[in-house]
């Protein structure tokens, strides 16, 4: 027979088992969202007939990709939905989307006057204005900006880091750079303890995940091209692995670039990974982590971020945590916390966002843990806002125990 194996229309593999909709965190709480099967493969067939079949309700998709993890037929449901939004959505991004999406720009301005910004965005009248005028929910608590960026700190470290024979490149992301340089510093400490020096990429831009979800596709593509070029230099010329501490940045660099933005990264994709995975492999190969004997005992509960689930890598974080003698680990059910980056900041999504996370918040409160640990910064904001617990990154826990 002359029939070829694979179609470029991946949605054809759907056999309508509907397990994706069962796993969709939005469909469970928001009846306005048609669910991944309807919005994805079913809708795609209709949109191929006529673009008028595009339903603006697709904006309720979190892009958590839990549908794709659940799918037994390998349908890239989340990609289909996001691509449809990119191609068909008529709603133009506004001021709110611009502010939320441009993490680089906003971050670099905010860090210059961090104490003022942090104090201002916490004020009730400011929140009221942002709610009414901009459409950012007043109940949302903003992440704090730091004084000085991680990149600034790293510049001072360059000499010390270059003394290590073995080197890795670090994709720090906007959050580490503008909000939480101590996480980057913890990463550097851990890597140094393992005998590796850390260096930055030639040029790093925001991975673009917020640009994609807010409809700034061209800008996202430009930034992706810059990042892939820098990653190529690191991987192909300097023979360095590129490590990151954010699960969403990692996922975006590896998979969203080729799937949603059409930016080819196949030659370097496998060399971009999460630090926890790299470190776990080093330990497996015999590297020793010098744990303190007198570290205080803590109980932590690990939360699996959606993109970590999609990467399939949460076990690396969990196993690393289990290696720390002073840490007792419980694993929370893998479920979405509801924030999904900038999604939960939007006024119209606040209720959905909190309803999605409700089960998780309850489980956290009941777990009796001292800290929640997770690889995603936006999960951290959501959990810290919605529960009584502080949230740490696995590498922060690790660094504290060294």
């Amino acid at each position: 027979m002359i029939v070829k194996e694979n179609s470029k229309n991946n949605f054809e593999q759907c056999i309508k088992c509907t397990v994706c909709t069962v796993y969709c965190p939005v469909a469970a709480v928001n009846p306005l969202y048609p669910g991944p099967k309807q919005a994805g493969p079913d809708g795609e067939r209709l949109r191929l007939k006529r673009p008028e079949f595009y339903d603006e309700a697709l904006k309720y998709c979190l892009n958590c990709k839990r549908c794709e993890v659940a799918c037994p037929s390998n349908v890239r449901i989340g990609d289909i939905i996001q691509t449809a939004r990119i191609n068909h959505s008529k709603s133009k991004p506004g001021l709110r989307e611009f502010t939320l999406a441009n993490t680089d720009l906003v971050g670099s301005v905010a860090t210059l006057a961090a104490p003022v910004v942090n104090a201002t965005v916490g004020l009730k009248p400011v929140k009221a204005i942002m709610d009414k005028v901009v459409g950012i929910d007043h109940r949302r608590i903003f992440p704090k900006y730091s004084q000085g960026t991680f990149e600034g700190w790293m510049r001072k470290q360059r000499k010390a880091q270059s003394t290590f024979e073995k080197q890795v490149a670090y994709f720090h992301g906007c959050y580490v750079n503008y909000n939480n340089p101590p996480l980057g510093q913890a990463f550097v400490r851990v890597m140094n303890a393992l005998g590796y020096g850390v260096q930055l990429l030639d040029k790093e831009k925001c991975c673009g995940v917020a640009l994609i979800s807010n409809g700034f596709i061209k800008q996202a593509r430009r930034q992706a091209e810059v990042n892939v070029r820098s990653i190529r230099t690191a991987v192909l010329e300097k023979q360095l692995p590129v490590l990151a501490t954010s699960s969403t940045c990692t996922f975006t660099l590896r998979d969203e670039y080729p799937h949603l933005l059409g930016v080819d990264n196949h030659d370097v994709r496998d060399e971009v990974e999460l630090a926890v995975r790299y470190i776990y492999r080093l330990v497996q190969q015999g590297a020793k982590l010098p744990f303190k004997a007198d570290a205080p005992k803590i109980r932590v509960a690990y939360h699996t971020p959606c993109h970590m689930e999609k990467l399939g890598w949460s076990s690396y974080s969990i196993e690393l945590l289990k290696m720390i003698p002073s840490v007792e680990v419980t694993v929370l059910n893998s479920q979405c916390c509801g924030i999904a980056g900038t999604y939960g900041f939007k006024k119209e999504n606040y209720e959905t966002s909190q309803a999605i996370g409700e089960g998780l918040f309850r489980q956290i409160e009941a777990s009796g843990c001292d800290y929640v640990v997770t690889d995603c910064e936006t999960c951290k904001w959501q959990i810290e806002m919605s529960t009584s617990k502080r949230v740490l990154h696995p590498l922060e826990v690790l660094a504290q125990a060294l």
Partner: protein
Amino acid sequence: MTKEYDVIIIGGGATGAGVARDCALRGIKPLLVERFDIATGATGRNHGLLHSGARYAVNDHESAEECIRENMILRRIASHCVDETGGLFISLPEDGLEFQKKFIESCLSAGIYAEAIDPKEALLLEPSANPALIGAVKVPDGSVDPFRLTTANIIDAKLHGAEVLTYHEVEELIMEQGRVVGVKVLDRKSGERKEIRSRIVVNAGGIWGHNIAKKAGVTINMLPAKGSLLIFGHRVNNVVLNRCRKPADADILVPGDTISLIGTTSSKVLFDEVDNMYVTADEVDLLLREGAMLAPSLLHTRILRAYAGVRPLVASDDDPSGRSVSRGIVVLDHATRDGVEGFITITGGKLMTYRLMGEWTTDLICKKLAVDAKCTTAERPLPGSSPQKREQTSRKIHAVPTMQRESSLYRHGDMAERVETSTSAKRSLVCECEEVSVGEVEYAINALEVNNLVDLRRRTRVGMGTCQGELCACRAAGLMAEHGKYCTRRAKQDLASFLNERWKGMAPVAWGDTLRESEFTMWLYDGVCGLTTKKEEEK
């Protein structure tokens, strides 16, 4: 009680429905009898191509002219059944450009707008077309949904006084003094037999009309020619693709509603085979191989099903393929032809010319009944096809989710307002592939003469999507039972026969995802739900 009608029309295809509507609009009281459901014969088993006539332009000037005239009329009167996609006749290197010149000349002389365009432009217009093409001609082809078209004609006919009996099979023609004066029918649902009388009987039975004519002792030399087609899972093309060469096998690719269709083959079959058409492996192979010449991506597109229809051609010579036979309309007045009064046969023609066939037949009926009324079917829009009302309906159902609203409007035109959408229960979906809601199914059950799931499919597309009944069949059967269409036992039987009918179409192309999905369907119905009719038969 015997009721007298002016006309009894045998056959519920597009032609019969067209005759019934035309009669009713001219004040003649018709009864339409159909042994199964509407559009079960050749009407529902073709390409659904809104011919521009271009295909016939070179060889059959008369058919071409008829086509383009009816094409323009249908766009007006049946807008909700028509998709104005446009069409391309592409020339591949092996075809050469020789034929193109003659083709364009013939089109223009038949009144068909035909314009040669640059191959690059053709690929922009239809990206799925074979990139090797060396020439392309733009023509006003489109697609037409035969089920909707027939349904709309029936609705309008009934609105103007026609009566319709589906699942009534004509067993005999009542003859009195060499005159046909009525029919003896078998009610296939109740098993009852009855006589119905009329002043004229019209035989619009398509290929089955051959046997109906025999009942009056009349011979029509028909030539059953089987045509097979493949349905692809989604729209591969949005513009009708044809080969610019002498008409041959599998050289038309039509985008119809959510799917694309490639066809057809042509082979002679025997009369005793016409009730049971199977698509063979060789035909599937041929359709794919030739289809890929039009659009290479067909080779790796999921095929939903295969089906075959029988063309009711009237033989004018003994061409074995049935292709060089005229597709022209044949109206036979058996009074002048055979000395049998009160009996007319309408045959030949094609879906495209169903209205004209109705007009000619009704003209003859009028003459016989001495009724002085003009045909208005070319001007009066069919129910559902009023552009102004469509706009109103669209606004009225604005709160319905986009995909469902657009699907409902696409299928029913302005009649979509009859679909109940007021509660979320009515808006919940029965068929997820084709976005058919509970409200739409209930509308079909209550207003569009639905007796079983297959009938429902013809009215709504339930079960016509990629899942082929996997999710919707049981929901629809539940609704049918709820609305008193049948009991639980009959519901189970109907469910089984519906799924078997779906499988019949999938079997010739059962590989890859189509096979996977049908396996999954079997797990669900047989494995999980325990739907099996075998055990009951054993008892």
